[in-house]
């Protein structure tokens, strides 16, 4: 294994910014492999409990890794979203009772990337050999039942409740529509260009057997004929609301070589946070994302640049979010994302060798399922193994771009 870079070296390579910063993450390049991936069914309101979907996904991930439940000695989930599984659920479902290393720094969104630093540490310290990260949501069922919405956290936060909600600046589509207005003002980005993302992601969902929108096509003409939801965004620019779960197994690299699939390992990780977090209304530059701070750190750790990346799975809660992250990850100059995404550049069958950068090859949050990024990583692993439904030619390096508005994370994976 190559010499590790110090925090000082990583900090110097990543640079500094005046409206946010990168978390200081030690060099963990090559320190873990993703050896198994699994999913539940994805759907609208299913009536299924989030815990049951999580256990289905975990079972599939363990089988994919060629392991048994007794081999899993680490579990990561988040306590910040309701109804995630606990160790007791794992043992009850699989009939096991062994000791497990447990971390609440797992889950979806940004955590789907940042969980790797804690998993890598646990693997290195031999506190675990095979760690599952899992995330599940039943928000489609909850919305149908009137028992919860994705905006609940924002509505309960004090400054937002006192200074933002009274004006109707809420929920998330309004936040991102506002960001989009600024991007359009500064850079001339157009509705047609936002539509290119919606159309590309929908096409990928149409070719993906697990996607919620697999049977619904969308052309740019159809997109432009849809009504505005919150200017300049249409419903088609927004994520779905879904039920579903996904999970994956992270193993020590020396174990991964003897497991069933081609080895997909961690190459780089970055985590960016805006100043004034969590208040995106106060974000210094609203036409960008905290991927601005995360990406340079991840590239420095991986000793790579955007030129080395074959496939992108970006947290597309909204079309504008994915567009801004494409810029902030360095795939084009800042502000040129609108023109860049045209000409099918994000489609899976236009690889880097043809000037493209395939993006959200399963359909993303907008057309696959809104499971908050956990399925993005599953799709990325399948792309790098060469077994994806919409397979990108010669995909060897890929990025998951995680996002929670005030934070973003860059996870770079590579096939060894």
């Amino acid at each position, binding site marked *: 294994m190559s010499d590790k870079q110090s925090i000082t070296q990583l900090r110097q390579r990543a640079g500094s910014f005046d409206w946010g910063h990168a978390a200081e993450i030690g060099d963990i390049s090559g320190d873990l492999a993703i050896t198994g991936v699994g999913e539940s069914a994805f759907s609208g309101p299913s009536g299924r409990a989030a815990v049951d979907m999580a256990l289905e996904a975990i079972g599939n991930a363990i089988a994919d890794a060629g392991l048994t439940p007794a081999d899993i000695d680490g579990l990561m989930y988040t306590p910040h979203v309701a109804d995630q599984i606990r160790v007791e659920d794992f043992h009850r479902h699989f009939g096991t009772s062994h000791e497990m290393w447990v971390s609440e720094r797992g889950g979806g969104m940004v955590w789907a990337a940042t969980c790797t630093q804690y998993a890598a540490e646990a693997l290195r310290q031999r506190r675990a050999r095979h760690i599952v990260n899992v995330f599940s949501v039943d928000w489609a069922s909850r919305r149908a039942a009137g028992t919860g919405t994705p905006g609940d956290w924002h*509505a*309960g936060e*004090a*400054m937002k*409740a*006192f*200074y*933002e*909600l*009274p*004006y*109707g*600046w*809420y*929920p998330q*589509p*309004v936040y991102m*529509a*506002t*960001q989009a*207005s*600024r991007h*359009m*003002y500064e850079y001339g980005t157009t509705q047609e260009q936002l539509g290119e993302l919606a159309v590309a992601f929908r096409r990928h969902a149409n070719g993906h057997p697990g996607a919620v929108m697999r049977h619904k096509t969308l052309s740019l003409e159809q997109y432009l004929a849809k*009504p*505005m*939801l*919150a*200017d*300049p*965004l249409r*419903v088609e620019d927004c994520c779905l609301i879904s039920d579903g779960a996904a999970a994956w197994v992270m193993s020590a690299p020396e174990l991964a070589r003897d497991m069933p699939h081609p080895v997909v390992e961690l190459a780089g990780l970055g985590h960016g946070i805006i100043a*004034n977090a969590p*208040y995106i*209304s*106060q974000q210094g530059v*609203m036409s960008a994302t905290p991927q601005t701070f995360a990406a340079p750190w991840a590239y420095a750790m991986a000793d790579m640049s955007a030129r080395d990346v074959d496939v992108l799975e970006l947290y597309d809660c909204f079309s504008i979010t994915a567009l801004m992250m494409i810029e902030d990850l360095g795939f084009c100059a800042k502000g040129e994302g609108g023109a860049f995404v045209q000409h099918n550049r994000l489609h899976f069958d236009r690889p880097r060798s043809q000037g493209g950068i395939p993006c959200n090859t399963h359909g993303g949050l907008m057309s696959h399922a809104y499971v908050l990024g956990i399925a993005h990583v599953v799709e990325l692993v399948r792309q790098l193994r060469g077994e994806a439904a919409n397979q990108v030619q010669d995909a060897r390096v890929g990025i998951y771009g995680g996002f929670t508005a005030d934070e973003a994370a860059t996870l770079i994976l590579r096939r060894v």
Partner: protein
Amino acid sequence: MAEFGPASANSITAPFWAAAREHRLVLPFDPATGKACWYPREDGTAYEWREVAGNATLYAFSVVRGPINPLFEPTYAPGLVELDAVPGVRLVTQIVDCDVGSIRCGMPLELCFRELQPRGHAAFIAPVFRPRS
């Protein structure tokens, strides 16, 4: 929905809404630095709430046209404005008194006051902004 702004008695929010009832816009300043603190934090700072001038520039906005907000009927225009006299402060507000189709980032605005009536809540007076005359 949890506690809601204009009804609050919280020390870092009540002065803003009490002043609004008198058609004044006040912001919290840190007496030690003389700088506006936005958003204020409950960290023990004894903020000085000073009235500020109401000319502003529109930073970003949306026009909400679909039923996505449980509190407000479409169509309305929430926006983020930067006060010309207080650099670094960005207020969430609404843009009023204009055709929503004419709203543009960068447009000059001026302060005014309106009664807002969110569904299920008491009406309240809020500082809002309109195109500068």
